[in-house]
């Protein structure tokens, strides 16, 4: 009993691999044909091989448990059927992402400087005033190349019509890139035959690109610069990624206690040889925890004096503290305007239509249509605190209506998109499951976008929530160049 592709249909959305007529999308013929040729037994073998590879490679994420035993490492569910994107489509997306992140960086730089965009009436001052991620301690600081968000993870989704939208931009400490890299390694082990034609664009230069970008931020460009990855520690759910990236770049993985700021306002790490100067910190610790002298006093994850060293230009921090001001779902709604304002261009990638609850008219519309809306808090990530209207109960609708009325600035709403699907192995058969895509955009002296990104998949039937903490898995993402422009 091989997979019955004839019965495969993605009734409620755009499928990334198979057309509504049951044929492979242009360029994807080879892989669909290949998968079709595998028996159940073979398919199961491949899946087991992938799972084993994940375990052996130690690809895990941490689920925190209350038992005092610390976190538990889990293997993140991985589906062996890849997600497919044509190189032609990707090239446009690549341009769109660069344009978007460029505008976002100009916005952040402007906000911490003259705030021209507010004075010119393009961005409302009250949004900024109520932003939880605005850090007034960053006013007047000028990071290298005027870049604040050096690593951005933007989430892309596709709706029924096949249009690709940007759902959100993660500018604080976006994670997931290690899974993108490891997924590819696993696929190469499991399906070596498919990589033989060499049309699948490689992704494994990411750590080199990241290293080069971080180097370009160094305050001592002439010297050999010392780069470190700053982690909150082993109980962080992304600890695996922190240690993975440090290893891949060949730099040290440090905790706050490994670093200190000297009398000269430079950052040093403690080594058995004494102190060693640090030039660039790729921090995976949230803003509020990085410097107890400036932010949360009780934080033990950070480095006292770090902000001082940064302000003096003695160390570079990626992402810059305060960059999260643009990582806010209300600010998100203004990104198309930012692109027009700063770059004088039309946005290449569209935003998902977004209703701001702070606006009376839009709020009324949202409240009247809650059952069709996805409501999100402005500053949460990881899929927490949101409501998917069609799937929620009447009671939940009521609760959210109350929440919105109490704090309208904190909520936005979007129409429920029927996310695109990709065939996924479930219970021995292939079924459509919803996916999103998180490419990573690096910005330093120059910009770089990953080829594809991390495809996250909601493994539960009909579910739209792809977060690892909530029953999501991942897939390898193939940007395939099938020739022609």
């Amino acid at each position, binding site marked *: 009993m091989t997979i019955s592709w004839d019965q495969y249909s993605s009734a409620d959305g755009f499928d990334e691999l198979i057309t509504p007529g049951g044929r492979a999308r242009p360029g994807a013929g080879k892989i669909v044909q290949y998968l079709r040729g595998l028996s159940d037994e073979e398919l199961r073998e491949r899946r087991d091989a992938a799972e084993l590879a994940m375990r052996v490679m*130690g690809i895990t*994420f941490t689920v*925190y448990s209350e038992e005092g035993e*610390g*976190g538990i490492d889990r293997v993140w569910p991985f589906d062996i059927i890849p997600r497919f994107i044509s190189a032609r489509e990707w090239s446009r997306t690549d341009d769109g992402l660069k344009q978007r992140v460029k505008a976002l960086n100009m916005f952040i730089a402007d906000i911490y400087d003259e705030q021209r965009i507010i004075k010119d009436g393009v961005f409302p001052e009250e949004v900024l005033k109520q932003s939880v991620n605005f850090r007034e301690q960053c006013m007047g600081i000028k990071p290298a190349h005027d870049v604040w968000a050096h690593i951005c*993870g933007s989430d892309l989704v596709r709706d029924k019509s096949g249009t690709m939208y940007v759902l959100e931009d*993660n500018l*604080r*400490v*976006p*994670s*997931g890139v290690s*899974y993108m890299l490891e997924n590819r390694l696993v696929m190469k082990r499991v399906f070596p035959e498919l990589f033989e034609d060499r049309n699948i664009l490689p992704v494994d230069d990411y750590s080199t690109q990241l290293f080069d970008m971080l180097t370009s931020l160094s305050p001592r460009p002439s010297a050999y610069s010392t780069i470190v990855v700053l*982690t*909150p*520690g*082993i*109980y*962080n*759910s*992304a*600890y695996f*990624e922190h*240690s993975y990236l*440090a*290893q891949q770049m060949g730099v*040290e*993985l*440090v*905790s*706050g*206690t*490994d670093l200190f700021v000297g009398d000269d306002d430079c950052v040093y*790490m*403690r*080594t*058995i*040889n*004494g102190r*060693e100067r640090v030039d660039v910190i790729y921090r*995976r*610790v*949230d803003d509020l*925890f990085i410097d107890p002298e400036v932010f949360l006093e009780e934080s*033990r*994850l950070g480095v006292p004096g770090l902000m001082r060293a940064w302000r003096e230009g003695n160390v570079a921090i990626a992402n810059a503290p305060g960059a999260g001001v643009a990582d806010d779902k209300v600010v998100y709604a203004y990104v198309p305007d930012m692109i027009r304002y700063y770059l004088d261009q039309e946005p290449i990638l569209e935003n998902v239509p977004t209703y701001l609850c702070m606006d009376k008219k839009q709020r009324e519309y949202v409240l009247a249509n809650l059952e069709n809306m996805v409501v999100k808090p402005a500053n949460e*990530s*990881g899929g*927490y605190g949101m409501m998917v209207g069609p799937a929620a109960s009447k009671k939940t609708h009521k609760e959210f209506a109350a929440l919105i009325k109490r704090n309208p600035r904190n909520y936005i709403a979007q129409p429920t998109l029927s996310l695109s699907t990709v065939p996924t192995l479930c219970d021995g058969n292939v079924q459509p499951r919803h996916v999103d895509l998180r490419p990573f955009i690096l910005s330093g002296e120059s910009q770089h976008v990953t080829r594809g990104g991390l495809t996250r998949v909601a493994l539960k039937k009909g579910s739209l929530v792809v*977060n*690892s903490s909530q029953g999501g898995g991942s897939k390898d993402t193939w940007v395939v160049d099938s020739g022609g422009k």
Partner: protein
Amino acid sequence: MLLSSVAERVYWFARYVERIENTARMILVNNILLLDLPGKSTLGWEPLVSITGVPEKFHEIHKDVNERNVVSFLVMDAGNPSCILNSIQYARENLRTSRAIFPRSIWETLNDLHNYARENKSATLTRRNRYEFLSHVIDSCHLISGKLSASMSHDQIYEFIRMGRNIERADMTSRVIDVRADNLLPKHDDELKPFDDIQWKSVLESLAAYQMYRRYVHVRVRGGEVLRYLLQDSHFPRAINHCLGQIERCLRNLPLNEAPQYALVKAQRMVRNAKVDKIVNDNLNQFINKLQLAFIDINAELTSTYFEGKEVSAALYYGEPGIRSTA
């Protein structure tokens, strides 16, 4: 380049692995020893509690000093910071945070041991199953040491492993001498009673030293000779002189070694110049106390030179889960 915090974790990882092994062997040997002693022997399990150095913690948990309570204290009582289960937990946490440095299979072995000990700990409460459990624990520690030796670069990191192992060994040997000998020391060497013989033998056994002693010392087991062997022999791995010599060699390969070396030489002189015959009859406790202070000194110098005076592995517990990631 070696981060201080990594050096510290590696050092403590090695200490804990050594501690696990030593504790397990101590129980095992006592177990066998008691079978040889007459039923009414005053010597029972009490000395083992003293060896841990925290007898007050024992009395917080248990009322009676009996076999079951002592074994429970040494193997699994959460209130004993050095019990086997706690030591495994600490070793594991230190390894977890520096996993990238170690060959993967070391993590697997320690993890297996962790699971095994948690699942089977109650086996130690009966004499029948105790042997199997403790042997497995000891073997696992040897497996880890073997893997470290055979598959890890013998670089600066490895020096910290060796230092951790040897300071822990030296410390344990001194404790065993202290507590055991206290009960054993004959006022006059010629008054050897038959059971004392057995007990001196058990001192050697608990340090896995009996066979080597017989090969190298060529005299019957006697207090003074046993002491001399365990203090001053330069070849036996658990003899204090040997342990200190190992640390000396490690320090030679490390930077900024002046202060730790100074502390080390002080301890080495104390051991090498000890007049064993006199100490045996006179002031053994005092001598051991001084020696242990010297070990504390070495540890303190290593800490302030290389780890910068932080609390033991404190860095491990900084990573609280307050921060959510978006993955």
